[in-house]
């Protein structure tokens, strides 16, 4: 008999098909390392038909904003975001890599003007999807470690 490791949730969001090992970064994107009032379930290194192994994150009583979904796409380009309402999948989105990542990443160039106290959001253009390459629209620097640069 197949055992269910994670129980269904009543209302909230399930982020599935996260690359194995990236779930904790997804939590960081969602700000879940800080105080949260709802239950968060993380499944790591779960067998996946599509990609061998994957991670899953379930967040109860919360639906993601488009900006949060964009952020997830940067580290989990094949993730699916399922909005659950009353135990049913009410909406299902495949994340889409945006053309630009605004206010999501910090520029890795310490001499970039966006790392000074200026009233602007960082702005990266997505150059290529796989492997993901993004460049700062201000200083042109191509970011090396995208996951580490997420604000």
């Amino acid at each position, binding site marked *: 008999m197949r055992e269910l490791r994670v129980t269904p949730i009543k209302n909230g969001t399930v982020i599935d098909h996260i690359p194995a090992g990236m779930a904790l970064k997804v939590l960081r994107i969602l700000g879940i390392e800080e105080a949260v009032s709802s239950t968060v379930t993380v499944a790591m290194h779960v067998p996946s038909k599509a990609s061998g192994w994957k991670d899953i994150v379930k967040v109860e009583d919360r639906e993601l904003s488009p900006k949060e979904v964009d952020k997830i796409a940067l580290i989990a380009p094949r993730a699916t975001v399922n909005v659950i309402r009353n135990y049913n999948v009410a909406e299902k989105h495949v994340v889409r890599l945006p053309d630009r990542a605004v206010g999501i990443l910090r520029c890795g*160039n310490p001499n*970039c003007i966006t790392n000074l106290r200026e009233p602007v959001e960082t702005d990266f253009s997505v150059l290529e999807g796989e492997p993901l390459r993004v460049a700062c629209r*201000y*200083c*042109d620097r191509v970011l090396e470690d995208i996951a580490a640069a997420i604000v």
Partner: protein
Amino acid sequence: MASWKGRDILSIRDFSRGDIEVVLKYARKLAPVAEGQKSSRSLEGKVLATLFFEPSTRTRLSFHSAMIRLGGQVLGFSNVEGTSVQKGETLADTVRMVEGYADAIVLRHPHEGAAVLAAEFTERPVINAGDGAGQHPTQTLQDLYTIWDEKGKIDGQGIALVGDLKYGRTVHSLAYALAQFGVSLTLVSPPGLEMPWEIVDELKRAGTQVATTHRLDDVVATADVLYVTRIQRERFPDPQEYERVAGSYRVDLPLLREAKKDLIVMHPLPRVTEVDPAVDRTAHAKYFRQAFNAVPVRMALLEMVLGVGG
């Protein structure tokens, strides 16, 4: 660029070949004014702000000369000492304040991306006069103008870029711009200071013939243009190693004996030892002309972005 009026001049990479040609031809028309042989009042009543967050005498003076020769006025600062920047004002605020005092803004800043940011906070045209290790498009245009003006065309020239090709902002921008013309490029640098591979890759993808060598002797007989840059002492931990390397990239009279008669030697200046002063007296030396060419090129850009003349 569809319309030049009000445009920001931020990066040479925003310039198509057609754009570059428009600027070069426009600059040539203004050369007699730049030389003081003709006078112009085309920018009378216009004010240019030159905001230099770090000193760069040559760049600042050539912008001033360009504006004044066209009848305009200049205000600004040549370093941040005594300005509100020292009190912690953001660049965004400085630009919005200056916008009220000037019709166009020239910005020199030690941080990459500063000009892009400044342009977001003002409707006035912003001209990037160097942002950290980033872009300095008017320098590149003045280099292209020099090649075009001296040789009659850029296409087909054999151009050797010599010196520190790894860290040199000038040569990176120039190489990108030259890739739009059918030149053959030879990259001559000491080991360890080669042009970054991603730039070489992009040049090749743009269809430019690119060769690389560590020896200046290899190129001198065939080159049409030698673009020499400074090798900085601080790149070498060992001073003796620096002397040895710098010595092997020196352009002097014995070296030029092998050169084509119409070879031109360019240098963005200031030079240290890489071009022997004895070369100054030869017809090859074009670096002072190149420095002068900053003026007509900047005049052309000022008239274009301020929407006068034409």
